[in-house]
């Protein structure tokens, strides 16, 4: 271990000495004893950490906070604690025989589901609902932030996401790209491109292979709908399915994808498509 490595480790050593027994720090602490410069650095760090820790812990807590917590949470706690005694059918599962019967039923149902054709699990509406939920609810909205389409495409390729897609003119790759993400849908990789567009706000475009959806949307004919309160547009093109999700209820995806000046449906969607 060199001095710089020791410094990185010792930075996580709490000033109150709580980590003295942690073997992770032993080697770095030993080095600090024999290396004068490291020892001086560590002493200074500990002085700073002790000061910051003491001050942070001295921040006053509102005197009424505890009463508020108890007033808010205790009714919920009591409701849980006062749940009625288990019903007769709950007692059934206290016997090993019942567990064995239950296990057989579960295995039978699993086999039945496994052997059943997969069409139902790949319904486009289910896919759409799950992608909207991922777009709206997931903590990490994008895996990487990057506005350079070439780098985003390369990243998607490296992470086994779909990276051969044709973007509509509204997302022609020149502006507004924020980042991307790779998601999983029943074992199928789905790429998500996130855009912040002037005039249309925040939209996400999900791209997956069309063959997994028996009810994939029509080719080059955007279908406008709403899922989870968010506007969506979906279409197929060249073996891929595209799902666009707007992040505000009033996002006008129709206006975005079908400028009235273009003549045919395909021209409205892909007048100067950005092919990757």
């Amino acid at each position, binding site marked *: 271990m060199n001095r710089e490595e020791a*410094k*990185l*480790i010792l*930075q*996580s050593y*709490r*000033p*109150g000495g*709580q*980590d003295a027994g*942690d073997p992770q720090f032993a080697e770095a602490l030993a080095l600090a004893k024999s290396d004068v410069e490291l020892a001086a650095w560590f002493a*200074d*760090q500990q*002085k*700073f*950490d002790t*000061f*910051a*820790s003491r*001050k*942070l*812990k*001295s*921040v*006053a*807590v*509102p005197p009424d*906070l*505890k009463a*508020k*917590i*108890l007033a*808010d*949470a*205790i009714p*919920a*706690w009591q409701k*849980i*604690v006062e749940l009625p005694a288990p019903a007769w059918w709950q007692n059934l599962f206290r016997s090993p025989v019942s567990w064995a019967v239950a296990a057989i039923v579960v295995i039978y149902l699993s086999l039945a589901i496994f052997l059943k054709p997969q069409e139902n699990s790949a319904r486009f509406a289910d896919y759409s609902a799950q992608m909207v939920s991922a777009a709206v609810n997931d*903590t*990490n*909205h*994008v*895996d*990487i*932030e990057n506005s350079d389409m070439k780098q985003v495409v390369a990243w998607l390729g490296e992470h086994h996401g779909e990276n051969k897609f044709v973007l509509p003119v509204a997302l022609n790759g020149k502006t507004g790209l*924020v*980042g991307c993400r790779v998601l999983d849908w029943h074992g199928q990789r789905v790429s998500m491109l*996130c855009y*912040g567009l002037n005039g249309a706000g*925040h939209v996400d475009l999900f791209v997956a292979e069309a063959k997994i959806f028996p009810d994939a949307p029509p080719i080059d004919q955007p279908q406008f709908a709403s899922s989870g309160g968010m506007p969506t547009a979906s279409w197929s093109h060249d073996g891929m399915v595209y799902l666009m999700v707007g*992040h505000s209820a009033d996002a006008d995806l129709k206006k975005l994808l079908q400028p009235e000046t273009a003549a045919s449906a395909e021209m409205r969607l892909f007048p100067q498509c950005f092919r990757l």
Partner: protein
Amino acid sequence: MDEPSFENIVNAHYEPLYRFALSLARSDADACDLVQQTFCRWAVKGGQLRDKSKAKSWLFTTLHREFLGQRRHDDRFPKVEISSVDDGEFAAPPFSESKMDGANVLSALRQLDETYRAPLALFYLEEHSYRDIAGILEIPIGTVMSRISRGKDLLRKQFLEKENR
């Protein structure tokens, strides 16, 4: 051993939880809300935690998730996870005890990017080891160590700036 009562859990943890919340949130009221929501979640779901010795970590993890959930509405584009930041090392002068009080230290901490704020606040509250912090923030241990290290440099910069004003 008897399970601790709900009030015992509150007594043991609400103060450090509040200080952690205060370092994350932008106002005292938001911090109080975060702590109250965390204990409401404990009231409903805490009974499902088999190992009650993990209550403290559960509460800090839940508070951090609550914070991230609230922030998501304001910021749809989180920062990319990074394991190290290298924009030039800060050579801090030797530290001399300053006249800064708790509010000043908290204010300096709040100036930092949230990437550093959360691990640093947990580190200085001294309730958790770096391993526990990694669990609470749901990031790798190496990332916690580099964020604590980099966060301290940035905090010292903030201290110097505040004292030189």
